[in-house]
């Protein structure tokens, strides 16, 4: 059974207050805590390493899968390999996420390596939230790795959120897209204190008509550091767009490195990057609507990261 801290972490990372409906696998402090499969979604524990294989049958529609991870003991370090096999024509929502509560003196670290094999014409919405809490000296570290293999005509939308409490994160996402496949990534990140966040994307558009749209919005506060490294490679007639938009505050630092590589004359690739502080006139406008300067700042950041 989950304790109160674990339940709170679960609510933060998966909006779950109770055990979810549909298929789920809850990993708590390095072990499978609870699990449920359905007729169409099977979850099998790996034998050689930590992690699970998830098989979603072709044609599965409107089903959801929750695979949250919670760490509430200090000093746990784990690497978990989860492989997702999503059948042709399936249409599913997958909610992952990791919450770490570290009140102890040792670092807690969860490195989740996710591989997605998305079948022809399948549609996946993937949500991954990271959250850290606890006032211990030990760091809360999350290093997710995501590999995506999108077959012809498939579609994947990823929502990646890390707003609070993770001391160090190094996120690597790679994707290979076949003809007509589309990938949308919406990343939202906020760092504070002395946190460090690295996020890199390498997307290969290998099939005609493939498309990718990678958008990151982030807020860097206090002494934190962020690096956003996004690379789209167009090998065929295709379209790609990457955007990094960051609000910088206090003594924070942000490095944005958008890269495009076109290996075909009809590869249409665009990148945009903007880093700047909150505009003074935005604060003034909200103050004329009755907010204090601090409240105005919060509203602007909340809206930006929404």
């Amino acid at each position, binding site marked *: 059974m989950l304790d109160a801290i674990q339940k709170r972490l679960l609510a933060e990372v998966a909006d779950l207050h109770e055990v979810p409906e549909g298929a789920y696998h809850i990993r708590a402090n390095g072990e499978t805590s609870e699990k449920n499969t359905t007729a169409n979604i099977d979850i099998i524990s790996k034998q050689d390493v930590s992690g699970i294989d998830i098989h979603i049958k072709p044609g599965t529609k409107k089903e959801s899968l929750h695979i949250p991870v919670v760490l509430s003991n200090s000093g746990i370090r784990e690497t978990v390999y989860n492989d997702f096999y999503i059948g042709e024509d399936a249409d599913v929502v997958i909610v992952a996420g990791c919450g770490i509560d570290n009140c102890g003196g040792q670092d807690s670290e969860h490195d989740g390596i996710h591989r997605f094999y998305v079948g022809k014409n399948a549609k996946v919405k993937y949500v991954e939230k990271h959250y850290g809490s606890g006032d211990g000296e030990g760091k809360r570290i999350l290093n997710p790795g995501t590999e995506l293999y999108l077959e012809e005509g498939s579609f994947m939308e990823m929502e990646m959120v890390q707003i609070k409490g993770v001391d160090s994160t190094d996120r690597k996402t790679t994707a290979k897209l076949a003809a007509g496949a589309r990938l949308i990534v919406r990343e939202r990140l906020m760092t504070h204190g002395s946190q460090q966040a690295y996020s890199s994307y390498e997307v290969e558009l290998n099939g005609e008509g493939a498309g990718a749209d990678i958008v990151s*919005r982030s807020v860097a506060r206090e002494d934190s550091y962020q690096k956003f490294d996004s690379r789209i490679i167009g090998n065929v007639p295709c379209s790609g767009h990457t955007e990094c*938009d960051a609000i910088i505050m206090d003594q924070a630092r942000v490095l944005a490195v958008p890269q495009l590589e076109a290996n075909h004359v009809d590869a249409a690739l665009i990148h945009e990057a903007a880093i700047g502080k909150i*505009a003074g*006139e*935005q604060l*003034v*406008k*909200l*103050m*004329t*609507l*009755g*907010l*204090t*300067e601090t409240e105005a700042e919060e*509203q*602007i950041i*909340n*809206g*930006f*990261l*929404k």
Partner: protein
Amino acid sequence: MLELKNISFEVSEEISQKEIVRDISLTVEDHKFVVITGPNGSGKSTLAKLIAGIEKPTSGRIILDGVDITEMSITQRANLGVGFAFQQPVRFKGLEVLDLLRIASGRPLTAADACEYLVEVGLCARDYIRREVNASLSGGELKRIEIATLLARESKLSVFDEPEAGIDLWSFQNLIQVFERMRRKNQNGSIVIISHQERILNIADEIVVVADGHIADRGKKEQILPGLLGTSSARNLCAGNRE
């Protein structure tokens, strides 16, 4: 009632002080619709910013309903009932029109309530309520949303800084109707508009002419407007007399 008493505002230039507003005294009575006009650079917009607290006067006092607000912050003035519409409405990435209207009204406005404010400014509410207040909106749309936020605040005193700036002719026609309606419906508050458009001057109760930082003339519309027609203080946008 708003009272400006001997308001002056100076800015420091490299070697000297430049006076933008010189010893202006002005009273805006409750329920009045007052238009402040004058040539470019006359200090009109600065006067509006001084009222809202965005700038602080070098000397003089600002009194709202008997309370001295001269030293108060923008936020304090807003909460006492001073509303201000920007000449160039501000864009926000991520904040939606509904968010802005909720902040403005200071209460948990329902989407239906918020829509009424948008309808009031001539926008088809359903199309706008969930739009982000970002660069995807045109100047005219932003302007109307800006006005809607002021309606939602239900301020005692609403100050509009050149509402006609940066909008097209078609939007301007609509804008006039919005102000006409506001004037008719206005029960409690007073309205101050900074403008040099003839059609806005034409719906004023009172006109104040500012030139070179001081009040050159003031009085009822009927007295002041005829003398302004054809000057840069009363432009006719529709006749193509634009800058």
